[in-house]
């Protein structure tokens, strides 16, 4: 039990002292992709081999969350050198132990080779995928076993909390976050400090804060990775936020489809409670705060803040009119502040290193870094953290290694079902909140799905519309009926039954749904359709006029089954995941 801030430093020193310093440490990436690709088998093989050679005492084994380079899972890093081996098989492990651990030599065939140049990179930090990133939030994933709070303490965890509670007033914390320029990472990009201030200003005897971890955008998985890999960073951010806002209770609303995130954040919460970092008199101060974890039940609309609150209250997750905004009347009618996982995770960083340092990263209006899930037809799919203002081209080509299988870049989709498509002419766009909106898309929570010439944009618009019409909560007519109408038209077009008037109908419906829907889900639902109509109108016309699908995806419009969506040389891999 920690009852004074100085005990954090003492504890850290003690951990350092007591923890053995192995000559080598093997770090295994064990996130969702890792497990699905076989990391558990690698861990087992490592344990077996270390036991067999009696190396358990001298070689460290660290099981961490996601390292980001999902395409090369399962992968390991060997420290202190930082040697990186990807796409490992359990049978590779004896060689790794024999050569790298015992003889200090690199196993060349296991080293990452850049598929474009053939150049081999033995060290993780040199690999182009990592080199251009700025991993302020995710770098610690390589050092932290999410089951061990001690690892977080060693990474100076909870120091920001101590600083906020004992050296700063609540107003000073809000001012710091505000002048850092942090904006909401959930998608809308609202200034976080301002949001906190609104909530604090409300006169009420009770306030709530919520961490929105209902990451529902398909193709997006940063938030669950943060929660699964470094849950204490989010919890620390929430405690600091609660102190600034004046809340005694907080909720983490986490998506049930992310079982690892649910599990890790629950373990972390319980550890924090036990140590007096949550509960009464945190670190011996006069501040009390606790966190409840609520598991969602599979409704996308819960990502929308008013629906999320209905869901926490145990009701059907239907959205409601705003204003009043949650800051005025939220959970059970009390002022409530909702932020996304990544926003909360940025808070300790800002308090620890200061607004001045933080605000130097990024563009004039978008500060800090952003984590993206770079997926789809990209060579190096994974999770990347980059400074705001980076060019799209740098993300896709320098970090992502370009398009898979020698195909041509067609577009990248950002912002999920609420976002839009950016074709090649936007490759030099500097990525920040405002530029993306200006280009007709949105930042969203950070999905970045890359398409090549074998992706049919009409089919993809139909895919998104299918998604939103199914996930509409049904409360308001424009969204419930309108999205269904748009979906049905798109189905007709992809079957070769489209009419020329359909394009005008889609635009007309889209405009009405945008204006008249009650919440963000409906207001943004037409975006993928309107955006593809803007940039890829020709493809729609091909489907309607010539009954052709240029990408050869729409099966009613191609005589032969379309090929090439997936490399044929890689077989499905069966892996255990629990």
């Amino acid at each position, binding site marked *: 039990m920690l009852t004074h801030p100085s005990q954090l430093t003492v504890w850290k020193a003690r951990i350092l002292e007591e923890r053995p310093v192995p000559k080598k440490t093997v770090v295994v990436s064990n996130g969702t992709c890792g497990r699905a690709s076989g990391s558990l088998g690698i861990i087992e093989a490592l344990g077996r081999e270390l036991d067999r050679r009696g190396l358990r005492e001298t070689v460290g084994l660290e099981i961490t969350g996601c390292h980001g380079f999902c395409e090369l899972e399962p992968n390991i890093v060997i420290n202190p050198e930082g040697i990186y081996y990807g796409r490992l098989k359990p049978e590779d492990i004896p060689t790794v132990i024999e050569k790298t651990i015992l003889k200090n030599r690199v196993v060349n065939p296991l080293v990452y080779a850049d598929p474009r140049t053939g150049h081999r990179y033995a060290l993780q930090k040199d690999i182009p995928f990592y080199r251009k990133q700025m991993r302020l939030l995710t770098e610690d994933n390589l050092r932290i076993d999410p089951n061990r709070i001690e690892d977080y303490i060693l990474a100076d965890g909870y120091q920001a909390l101590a600083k906020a509670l004992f050296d700063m007033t609540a107003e000073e914390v809000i001012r710091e976050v505000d002048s850092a320029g942090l904006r909401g990472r959930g998608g809308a990009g609202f200034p976080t400090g301002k949001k906190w201030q609104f909530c604090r200003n409300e006169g009420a005897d009770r306030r709530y804060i919520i961490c929105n971890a209902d990451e529902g955008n398909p193709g997006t998985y940063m938030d669950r990775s943060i929660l699964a890999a470094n849950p204490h960073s989010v919890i620390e951010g929430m405690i600091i936020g609660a102190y600034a806002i004046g809340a005694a209770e907080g909720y983490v609303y986490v998506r049930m489809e992310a079982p690892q995130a649910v599990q890790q954040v629950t373990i972390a919460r319980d550890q924090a409670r036990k140590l007096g970092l949550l509960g009464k008199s945190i670190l011996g101060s006069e501040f009390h705060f606790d966190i409840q974890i609520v598991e969602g039940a599979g409704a996308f609309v819960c990502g929308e803040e008013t629906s999320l609150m209905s869901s926490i209250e145990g009701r059907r*997750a239907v959205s409601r009119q705003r204003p009043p905004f949650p800051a005025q009347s939220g959970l059970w009618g009390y002022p409530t502040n909702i932020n996304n996982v990544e926003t909360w995770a940025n808070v300790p960083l800002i308090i620890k290193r200061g607004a001045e340092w933080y605000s130097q990263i990024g563009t004039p209006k978008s500060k800090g870094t952003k984590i993206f*899930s770079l997926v789809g037809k990209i060579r190096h799919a994974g999770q990347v953290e980059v400074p705001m203002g980076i060019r799209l081209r740098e993300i896709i080509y320098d970090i992502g290694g370009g398009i898979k299988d020698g195909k041509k870049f067609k577009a990248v989709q950002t912002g999920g079902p609420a976002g839009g498509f950016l074709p090649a002419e936007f490759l030099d766009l500097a990525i920040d909140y405002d530029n993306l909106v200006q280009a007709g898309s949105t930042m969203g929570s950070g999905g970045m799905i890359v398409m090549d010439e074998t992706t049919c944009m009409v089919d993809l618009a139909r895919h998104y519309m299918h998604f939103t019409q199914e996930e509409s909560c049904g409360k308001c007519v424009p969204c419930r009926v309108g999205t269904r109408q748009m979906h049905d038209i798109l189905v007709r077009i992809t079957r070769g039954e489209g009419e020329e008037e359909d394009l005008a109908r889609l635009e007309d419906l889209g405009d009405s749904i945008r204006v008249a829907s009650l919440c963000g889900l409906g207001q943004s639902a037409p975006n993928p359709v309107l955006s593809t109509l803007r940039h890829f109108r020709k493809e729609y016309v091909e489907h309607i006029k010539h009954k052709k699908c240029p990408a050869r995806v729409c099966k009613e419009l191609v005589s032969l089954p379309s090929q090439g969506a997936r490399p044929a040389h890689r077989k499905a891999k069966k892996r255990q995941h629990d």
Partner: protein
Amino acid sequence: MTGLEMDDLLRGFGREQKELTQILHQVQAEYGYIPPQAIRRVAEHLNTTENEVYGVLTFYKAFRLQPRGKHLVTVCQGTSCHVRGGARVFDEMKKELGVEPGETTPDRMFSLETVNCLGCCAIGPTVVVNGTYYSQVSVEDVHSIIAEYRKRK
């Protein structure tokens, strides 16, 4: 399901409405679905109507009113899986099992479900059978994956 089992289960929860979805999660974990009798017991426990409980549980995708088959097959419908050929894998799975999503095969061996995104987008298309993940699944893989579970009976 007996009254006593439900009593035990409900004892762990408070009586406010906010407990409802968490109770339903627990009931489903226990029985594999939400048995009709459970709805009445949950309503009594929370001092609310069966109508309210039914309304909430049918709103959310997670809850089932029918027991599911022996093996649960989940096909990811996320955008990344979709652009990597997930739609054809899904069609093939429907053909292989002869059911639509949400249905169970007549021999009660397989239930087919979809999920909007599993969050392992970099290694899709993804199929999950009873919690075992299959990555980079192709149309040709579908048959062999299912055959493995048919053999197990």
